[in-house]
């Protein structure tokens, strides 16, 4: 009786399996395929989903202007589900099965490290939009986020300046993984070079997903009794809320002990009541509150897009640094394709060197001629009660990235141009 449906479902299941193994390849080449490799589920979805939407918006925008080389761009969205080996698998799929010409994606360093060998093996092209710890320069990756010298070091310089509160002691707080550890290593070397002694630097790490900051905040308080203290936070996304809430409830204000964060932007602040946070700092290369016509247009477009696509909570849609980096990356790639007249990876790579783009940050950003990183301005923003940042300090102009930080021994021998890691 039940036999037929069962058989059918089994057949259907095996069909699913087969299509999974052998995805249909390529249609005609009327479009240029663009891969988007951001986690839409799992722990990283919180950060990466908006980058996917931003990429789609930018692609729409380019298509609205007639596409590239007379062809439309066709986005191919996949979900690596915050699973690092899946990132490698998906990138291979994008490059060999879907035959995309470029991929925009990844957030965490580990996901980038996971796909890197694939991109190098298949000579693909990846645009990576997030600030990271540096120590990498692959010919197959363009890094549109900040290297440590484009974010962390200027932030600390600001804290040591009179306007930043002339901090003498530094509490380096991070989640225990590679980016915070490396950044703090660089910062410690930098602080040493500025004459800060080891007794005035405290490094504390918490496990992933840590949510109880009572002891740590108490320790910060204790540490701060020894002199003007600043906290440099590389706490990972989700742990920030309990950390800031604890700061607020133990009565630590930014005027006493400023906290500068490298992973807290507008998007993260959407999930936090910012009133107790006013005055806390963040260092980025872009803030939504930057005032210039390019940014005004950028923000307006994004809000309109969010509303049109009915994204969740579109009423409070914001832009942030990695979104801007995604936007800049796609546009630079488009310019390079136009310049090269082809989507061929080697030609586009050559065309990208020295490419410039008037970015929403208000600066004309340049892709470095050799090191695959963007020249970026650095801005320090203070949290306002409306969830935006007011910019209290910024660099004169864009800085060249130093992916091989001079503060890490041995890096002086590293070449200043991209070479395959293999």
């Amino acid at each position, binding site marked *: 009786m039940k*036999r037929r449906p*069962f*058989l059918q479902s*089994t057949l259907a*299941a095996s069909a*699913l*399996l*087969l*299509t*999974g*193994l*052998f*995805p249909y390849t390529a249609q005609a080449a009327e479009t240029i395929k663009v891969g988007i490799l951001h986690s*839409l*589920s799992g722990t990283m979805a919180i950060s990466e989903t908006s980058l996917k939407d931003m990429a789609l918006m930018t692609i729409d925008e380019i298509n609205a202007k007639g596409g590239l080389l007379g062809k439309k761009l066709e986005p191919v*969205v*996949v*979900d*690596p*589900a915050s*699973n*690092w*080996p*899946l990132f*490698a*698998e*998906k990138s*291979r*799929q994008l490059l*060999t*099965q879907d035959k995309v010409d470029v991929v925009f994606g990844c957030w*965490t*360093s*580990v996901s980038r*490290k*996971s796909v*890197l*060998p*694939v991109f190098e*093996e298949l000579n693909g092209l990846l645009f990576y939009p997030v600030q990271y710890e540096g*120590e990498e320069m692959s010919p197959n990756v363009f890094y549109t986020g900040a290297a440590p010298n484009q974010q962390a070091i200027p932030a600390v310089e600001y804290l040591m300046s009179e306007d930043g509160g002339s901090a003498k002691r530094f509490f380096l707080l991070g989640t*225990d*993984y*590679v980016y915070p*550890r*490396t950044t703090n*290593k660089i910062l410690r070397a930098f602080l040493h070079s500025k004459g800060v002694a080891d007794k005035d630097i405290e490094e504390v*790490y918490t*496990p*992933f997903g840590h949510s109880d900051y009572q002891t740590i905040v108490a320790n910060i308080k204790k540490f701060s009794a020894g002199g003007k203290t600043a906290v440099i936070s590389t706490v990972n996304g989700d742990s920030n809320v309990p950390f800031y809430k604890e700061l607020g409830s133990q009565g630590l204000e930014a005027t006493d002990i400023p906290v500068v964060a490298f992973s807290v932007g507008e998007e993260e602040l959407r999930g936090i009541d910012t009133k107790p946070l006013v005055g806390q700092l963040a260092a980025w290369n872009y803030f939504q509150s930057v005032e210039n016509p390019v940014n005004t247009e950028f923000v307006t477009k994004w809000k309109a897009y969010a509303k049109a696509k009915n994204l969740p909570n579109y009423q409070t849609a914001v832009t942030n640094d990695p979104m801007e980096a995604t936007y800049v990356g796609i546009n630079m790639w488009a310019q390079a394709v136009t310049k090269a007249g082809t989507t061929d990876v080697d030609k586009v790579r050559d065309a990208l060197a020295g490419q410039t783009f008037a970015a929403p940050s208000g600066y004309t950003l340049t892709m470095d001629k050799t090191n695959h990183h963007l020249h970026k301005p650095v801005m320090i923003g203070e949290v306002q009660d409306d969830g935006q940042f007011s910019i209290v300090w910024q660099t004169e102009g864009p800085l060249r990235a130093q992916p091989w930080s001079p503060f*890490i*021994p*041995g890096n002086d021998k590293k070449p200043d141009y991209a070479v395959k*890691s*293999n």
Partner: protein
Amino acid sequence: MNQPMTITLAQKAGPRLSLAVGGLVLAILLALPLLHLLPADSALHVSAYTLTLVGKILCYAIVALALDLVWGYAGLLSLGHGLFFALGGYAMGMYLMRQSAGDGLPAFMSFLAWNELPWYWYGTSSFLWAMCLVVLVPGLLALVFGYFAFRSRIKGVYFSIITQALTFAGMLLFFRNETGFGGNNGFTNFRTILGFDITAQGTRAVLFLCTVALLTGSLYLGFRLARSKFGRVLTALRDAENRLMFCGYDPRGYKLFIWVLSAVLCGLAGALYVPQVGIINPSEMSPTNSIEAAVWVALGGRGTLIGPLLGAGLVNGMKSWFTVAFPEYWLFALGALFIVVTLYLPKGVIGLLRKEKEQ
């Protein structure tokens, strides 16, 4: 559930058919790497993507089988098998890192400004020693943990929860840069294995064949165990441990044997997984992964040998397909699948197939 019965049943239902299907699958699996060696423009060429994807799923299938040996047969649900898998993978990864580092230190260490290898890295440049570690590390950990757990007669949910705690602790430990395994980035960027380029078609094909061999070997081992008196003691242990003790059997030895065997199989699967996938990092130890492995087994049908393999293939195949076709909805599909299977297919997919055969 009823393993010995099902075996007899399968025999009755036509060993020829089972053998034919099994042989066909094996033939396809053996053909895949050979087809991969064909030139890329050939119509029959199997892409590296397909090969690594199938290779990955086969590794998962071994894990499922190993888990089924302890869960389906001995009734011990481990929610920490990801740990053994990852440990095997890390042991292999250490060797691969040493290979790509040449005479120097692995990249992540020089980056931490370490000047010499930690003691546990000694000898990892030797493939042989790395292979020993692949077996020894998960095996010894399982032995020590199992010895204490079974001595205290921890079973059921308690056992599941402490295995989960174990793998969670392992994950936190490996997350730390200081532990000396590359922190959350783990190991990537492997170059050569035994001197062969890891991305070469030939190397891929050989690795794939090794995986098929390990899978067939484990399957054969499982089959022999299940048909031996040992297998029947395990079944008895699962259903009525007290009765078995009063028959004069010491359950600890039996549990420990199958538990360690299962951990070692997982370690081996992990060791084959790493060079094919190209990365090993602590998220393999996350409790979620281990729960997922339990789901493969339940989905396929536990207490059978083929069921877990089917389950691993089905879930991972679906995952690969869904995450491309409907990226936002694949969790719904996966979740619904679990519910439907537990509610309507208590014996898993294999139970369903058997029912078909019976009619």
